[in-house]
């Protein structure tokens, strides 16, 4: 019977493919949209290196110092500064070759060290490169804060430093200045380098398991974001796909089925299986798209796929139950949306659960299948040995229970006359 029902739905979908194509195209568009919003392709690592220009119109030592800081050490992994004249930089940013242009204005060092005038760095962003200019703006903000901090702590010594930078070298004075600066920095050491224990722990986990190279070992932000987005989106898709069950009710075909077959379970199960297949395709698009567009390396693909299977079953089963609970389509749509949002948000799909109220975080979230799915997929990215079988099986079992409940409710409602 299940095969007959699914074949019927497949035929109907084939004859009227638009609603199902929308279901499938939407995640594709979502993935592409997020990809564009976060900087498109990532050939040089998870986010790629950010190419920007520094225009030094000051031609001072301080300018040289800032330019040097931009492409040395850790910065060099993520930043790709080019040093250009203003006209050339503006030409390249207009040609979409740069994410931003940072201009160090004339007399920058002089004004900074003498405090005669307010100083400012100029930032020209290229909105076509989405998140990259925003990252640079944040970095520039950090530079400005650092310069302000230096200004507050070393202002009394700035005249001496100005002499040094202007080439009036007096090595004795320089040695005294450096020593004093060293002592001040030593006192501020604890503030500058506070212990970051949790961060250290994450880095170690990656280093110990990959060993393949930089592109695999780095933390990929999208591998964290995408499961959450997929977790929420699959719920909405399930709700959308399950509206076909409402259609069966509206056109009395479920009622007709019930006049021929006493058991409603196969009918509901057929609809759930169909929705489940749609969700698997959509999940495949989102997670597969994530691999292509964001360069995500799913570290335990089998477990991830198993979790997607479990979650798709749960989402389809849940939505069938909600259709059974809510007699009219309009109200059901509102309920489904609310349920999807609540499950998504409280389950940690949208925001990290650490930011949620303690009661939800400790007593509600751990009970939600959306949390089982999202947290396990995320954990698998940090540690491929994370146990995944239990959440996948729990979700699969839950989907069967939900389908049975939906069929039971439909049957009871028919008998009471609520569906006729």
């Amino acid at each position, binding site marked *: 019977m299940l095969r*007959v029902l699914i074949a*019927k739905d497949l035929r*109907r979908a084939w*004859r009227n493919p638009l609603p199902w194509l929308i279901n499938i195209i939407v995640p594709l568009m979502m993935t592409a949209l997020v990809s564009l919003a976060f900087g498109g392709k990532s050939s040089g690592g998870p986010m790629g290196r950010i190419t920007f220009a520094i225009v030094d119109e000051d031609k001072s030592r301080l300018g040289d110092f800032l330019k040097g800081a931009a492409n040395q050490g850790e910065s060099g992994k993520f930043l790709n500064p080019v040093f250009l004249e203003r006209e050339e930089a503006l030409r390249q940013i207009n040609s979409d070759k740069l994410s931003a242009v940072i201009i160090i204005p004339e007399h920058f060092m002089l004004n900074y060290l003498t405090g005669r005038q307010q100083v400012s760095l100029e930032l020209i962003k290229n909105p076509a490169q989405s998140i990259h200019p925003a990252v640079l703006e944040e970095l520039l903000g950090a530079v400005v804060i650092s310069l302000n901090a230096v200004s507050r702590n070393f202002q009394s010594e700035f005249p001496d430093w100005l002499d040094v930078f202007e080439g009036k070298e007096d090595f004795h004075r320089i040695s005294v200045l450096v020593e004093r600066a060293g002592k001040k920095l030593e006192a501020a050491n604890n503030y500058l380098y506070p212990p970051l224990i949790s961060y250290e722990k994450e880095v170690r986990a990656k280093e110990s398991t990959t060993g393949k190279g930089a592109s695999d070992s780095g933390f990929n932000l999208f591998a964290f974001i995408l499961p959450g987005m997929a977790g929420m989106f699959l719920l909405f898709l399930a709700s959308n796909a399950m509206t076909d069950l409402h259609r069966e009710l509206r056109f009395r075909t479920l*009622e007709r*089925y019930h*006049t*021929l077959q006493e058991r409603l379970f196969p009918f509901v199960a057929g609809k759930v299986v169909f929705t489940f297949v749609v969700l698997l395709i959509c999940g495949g698009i989102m997670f597969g798209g994530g691999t292509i567009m964001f360069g995500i390396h799913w570290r335990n693909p089998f477990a991830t796929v198993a979790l997607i299977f479990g979650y798709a079953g749960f989402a389809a089963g849940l939505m069938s139950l909600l259709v059974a609970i809510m007699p009219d389509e309009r109200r059901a749509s509102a309920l489904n949306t609310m349920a999807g949002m609540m499950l998504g948000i409280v389950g940690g799909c949208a925001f990290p659960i650490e930011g949620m109220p303690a009661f939800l975080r400790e007593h509600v979230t751990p009970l939600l299948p959306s949390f089982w799915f999202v947290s396990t997929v995320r954990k698998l990215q940090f540690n491929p040995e994370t146990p995944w079988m239990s959440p996948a099986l729990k979700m699969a079992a839950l989907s069967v229970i939900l389908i049975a409940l939906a069929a039971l409710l439909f049957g009871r409602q*028919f*008998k009471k006359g609520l569906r006729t």
Partner: protein
Amino acid sequence: MSLLKTDHLSKTFGAIHAVDSVSFQIEAGEIYGLLGPNGAGKTTTISMICGLLKPDAGEVIVAGGPFWSDPQKAKSIMGIVPQELAIYEELTGRENLEFWGRVAGLKSGEAKTRTTELLEALSLTDRAKDAVKNYSGGMKRRINLGCALLHRPKLLLLDEPTVGIDPQARLNILEFIRGLRASGTAILYTTHYLEEAEKLCDRIGIIDHGRLLAEGTLSQLQERLGGDRVFVLEADFGNASVEAWDGFLQRFRVIQKAEGQLVVAAIGVRDPAECLRELLNLPIRVENVTLKRPSLNDVFLQLTGRSLRE
């Protein structure tokens, strides 16, 4: 043995008695018409018979066994044609028939063979491969009917199967139903069309406000009016009252009294000419008297005090 028997079937929705102690039975090869206006309780009765609704009281007996003792067995010998079209418009006529055949329990090969037979019988072979959404109203009705017949049900429940279609399509469907009766199928046919009930049904039950008011063959129902003719008197009644006319109610049964019109039937076997004379001699200014054969509407009028067409 009757194929269907309802025994004091009742269903209440809140304060509304949708069906109130309805009892009737249908034999094989018989068409039983359940006639009543919209909202009379016809669809609720059918829903209880086919197990979509559970009765609050009473019992449905299908082929000698209580429906609820084995619902699936009872359903397997029934075919239900719902009032609203319950078919898949995206699918072709053939696909719809085959699908409902499979749901009814036929194997794939059986469903295919039976579909071909039914398409032929319903004169839809030429359009079998077209999507149902492209069919006319009458063709959709025929497919809707056919979907209930794949498994050759012994008992067919038809809930107003000709609503909203043109006269020619209606005639085709009625002819097809007569063919089913001839093959021995017991048919419950609900309608609010008097002509359909008169022409098609072997026995008729008149239902209103959930209660079965009368049942019988057409002639038995006509007999309730006192014979095979009624008199329609058109006059200016003014303040006149039938009770005030000497011996009138002993000789005539009042079927309906409306402004300017009185419908009566003679009590007992009487000469129509004599009845006419008596009516013309009433102490009112009579404008017209007509003699006609009583219709089901007259029966309904007598039972409910209102016309079925109102």
